[in-house]
Each structure stands twice: as C-alpha cells, then as structure tokens.
C-alpha cells in the first residue's frame, strides 16, 4: 500500500473538523504512517472467503411498545448547552447572509 502523505493527513484533518499546525501535520504523518505499516500484516492475507464482523453478536432492531413515556426535561438539557435560545440549541449563523 502506498505511503501516507502529508497532504492526505491534511485532507483527513479537514474531514474530521480539526485544525492541525505544521508541526502536528509532520508528527501525525509519521505516527499514523507507522500504525498503518503495522496494519499491513493484515493486508497480506487472503480473506476473500470470510464475511466481515462489525459487531460481536450481530445487531438486531430492538423495538419497544409505542407508548408515551417521560423523557429528559428540555430546560435541564438546554441548561448544559453552550448556548440556547427560546427552547432550542443556538449556533452561529449557518446561511451566508450579509451581517
């Protein structure tokens, strides 16, 4: 497998919503590269006959009776939010309007 590049690390940081400094980019390129090289003991194997296991016992839908039950109190939940407005979570402007 091709070696991990600095520009790939920068792209992944963008996907993950993280800002990395130049030093961090250099360090992560080396460190993540080492981990991926260790993972090459798997890529050499022919596992084409095996099914993947995403979960130890397989996931099944679990449904409960469709009955109204109490849930967390809205004000209690919003009290823990960084910002709230009129019973909702508040975030900075999303649409690009003129200020």
């Amino acid at each position, binding site marked *: *497998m091709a070696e*991990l590049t600095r520009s*790939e*690390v920068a792209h*992944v*940081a963008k*996907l*993950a*919503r*993280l*800002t*990395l400094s130049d030093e*961090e980019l250099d360090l*992560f390129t080396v*460190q*993540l590269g*080492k*981990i*991926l090289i*260790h*993972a090459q*003991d*798997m*890529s050499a*194997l022919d*596992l084409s006959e*095996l*099914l*993947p*296991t*995403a*979960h*130890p*016992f397989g*996931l099944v*839908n*679990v449904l*409960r009776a469709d009955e109204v039950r109490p849930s*967390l*109190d809205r004000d*209690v*939940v919003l009290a*823990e*939010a*960084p*910002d709230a407005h009129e019973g909702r*979570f508040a*975030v*900075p*402007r*999303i649409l*690009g309007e003129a200020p």
Partner: protein
Amino acid sequence: MTTALSIARDVNAGERSASSVLAASLAIVAARNEELNVFLHVDYEGATAMAAAVDERVAQGLNAGPLAGVPIAIKDNMCQTGIPTTCSSRILDGWRPPYNATVIDRLIAAGAVPVGKTNLDEFAMGSSTETSAFGPTRNPLDPTRVPGGSSGGSAAAVAAGMTPLSLGSDTGGSIRQPAALCGVVGMKPTYGLVSRYGLIAFASSLDQIGPFAATVTDSALLLEVIAGHDPRDTTSLPEPSPVLVAHVNDGVAGKRIGLVRELVEGADEDVVNAVNSAAEALRAAGATIVELSIPELRLGLSAYYLIAPAEASSNLARYDGVRFGLRVNGDDVTAMMEATRTAGFGAEVKRRIMLGTYALSAGYFDAYYGQALKVRTLMIDAFRRAYDHVDLLLGATTPSVAFAFGAKSHDPMAMYLSDVFTIPTNLAGEAAISVPFATGEAGLPIGVQILGPGRSEAQLFAAARVLEIADGRP
C-alpha cells in the same frame, strides 16, 4: 483492607454504619489524592446523603442491599446526574449529565455509595492515564510509575485502599491492564452483559463496563449487581444477571485450560514465569493444562487499531460545541465546530479520530476497515475452535509490570503494544479476567489473564479464585 462483602454484611447487621465506612474511605482519599490524582471529583455531599439513606433503611429494619454502605469509585466516562463527567477531556468542560448511567442506578439500588469520579486516559484512549487532560494518575504501589489505563484512576482507587470497589470500562484492555499494573482484580465481562446506557461511547462494538476489586469474590459480587438486561441498551443481552458469588469456590477440577503461546510471547521473563507458575497452580487444583497456539491472535492489534479508531471517529463527531461542554466561537458554524474540536481534544484523541477517519474514507475503506472486520471474523472463529478443545485459556495480561512515566508516551505504537494480550477478547466480544499472581521487577505485581467464551464469567471467577488462594490470599 475490609472487603465489600464484609462491609455490606456488617452494615446490614447494624454493626457498622454506612456513614462511618464512608468517612474512613474519604479519609484515605484526603490523605492520598493530591499525590496520586485518582479522583477528578469527589462527591462529598451526594455520597454523605446516600450513606445516610442506607443507614436509615437499616434503622427501619430493611435490608439495604448486597452492597449496603460500600463506597465505590466510578470511572469518569459514566454519567451520574448532577456531578461533572469529563472523560478527562477539556471538550466536556463543565458538563453535568442530566441522567444516570444504568450502572449508577443499579449501584444505588444495591446500597452502594458512589464517592466520586476517577481519572482516565482522555476518552479512554490510552494505556497509562498520561493522555488525561487533568494530569496522570500515579501508581499507588510506586508513584514513579503509571497505573496503566485507560481506567487507571479506578484501578488506583482500589489499590490505594480508597474504595474497596470501582467501575471501569474495557475497550481493548482498559480494565485488565491497569488491574494488572496496580495489583487488583479486573474483569472484562461478555459484550452485552452490562448495560452501556450512560457510558460515554468510545468504540461501541467493543466497549464494556466491568468491575475492579481487591478480591475475586468482591469482583463477582459487583458484577452480579451491575449485570443483567437493560431495555435502554439495544446491545444488552436478553437475560437476567448471572449467579456468580455462589460459584466462586467451584474450583477448576476437571477443567481443561489452554496455555496460549501467543498470550505470553514477547512478555518479560518475570511475567512468563508468573504465567507458568499459574498454570502449575491450576494443574495442582485439578485442571488439565494444554499448551496450544492460536496464531490469529497476533493480528488482533492491527485489527483493533483500525476498528476502534473508526468507531471513535464516528462517536466523537458529536462533540461539535452545539449541545454540551466546550464551545470556541468562530465566524460561522463550521469554524465554530473546528475551533471547538481543535481546542477541546488532546493529541491522542486527535490521532485516533484522524486514523479512524482515514480508515473509513473513500479509497481506503475496503483495504483497511473492511479487512480489519474480516480479521475480526477470523479471530472469533479461532477462539471458537480453541473452545472446542478447552474450557478456558490462560496467558499474561500485559507484557511487563508497571512502566515509568514517559517510557512510552512519545511513541504511540509502543504504547499500543501494552494491550496486545487483552485486545483479542474485545474483538470477539468474550470475557476475561486479570488476577494478581506473583510479583516481578522491583516487587511490582503481575497480572495473569484467564479468558473464556461468552457467558463464562462464573468459570473465570472460579479459576481466578484458585490462583488467588495459591498466591497466598485465602
């Protein structure tokens, strides 16, 4: 130290008060927490009220539960209403959960007294507590060394005698490894046996809550209280809590136990010697020891360090500065999220999010994540074949005794290797226990690991009890 079993018995009999037991526990916390950094938060007010409630029940002639008046420490990735839950991360700064984890509800119903929240590697990502945003925990047996991790604070709480019990979570060894390094008993139960409701997710298909205790019997007692079906966790096994304490002294006569080459290879000589002595002790107690090799286990580390970061990168996407914890402002919502995550997460968490995002990204998914999931299948099949021939497996918990601060923290791969013997159990969703057996370098404890198939907890406790007795702790 007084066991949980005897505390609960005495409190229920009215011979000791829960309040006096709590006071004794808090005195040790007060004496040693500044040095060891075990607790991030001590809930003096809540614990005092809960102990008083236990004493009140006893005064009314009621049974106050199987853990009546027993102080317990909680890893700070489990939600407890009204007190800070941080995951040892800046990103949850100031957050107080609006609900209890199921394990907290069950502990309180059983009469236990949660005294506070313990330090961990940030979001349980680490093997030494050195990635905690609030400084590392020190090993009570040698404060120049790490307690292991990620549940290092919970292991240290029991090792220092602060509380007879604590809860940890184990995603790749995070209960068993610190238990081994601190000289206490640590159990990773079968996936789904203990509800994950209110456990802050790291890698959801691997995470499992389990007990720390000074003795095997106390460990079984705690697991009985917290196990059993919970409708609020869709992955919870559909059955009641198993009977465990009653089987602790069942022994191992007639059992076949596999001594696994791959679960000792590369370990220090003192650790290998301890595992061999443990095999002798089990043989002397009537077990048949079979030497065997499971080469697939060697692939566990590689598969784990793709699967766990992949799940983590998804689970930790929720820390975006909108609903809880830290927010760092930015010009628009995306800038706010990026600034919040950049300021809130430490280096190891960022590294794992990056690794997981990469493994799941277009062009690499099949080669890395897809292949790792097939290795998981390979490992499950390999364990199943082994359990066709033996009842349990035996090996080391860790390659070495507790290491010094800084010994591995600059090299992620070296740190990851300290989980090499514990990871396969998580990938397979099975159960394993670490029990102190013999001592190694500098007189430090060694953990011997016993592994079993899913739902083998009673057998694991019984085998661990044999080793406990053989090691001079009747």
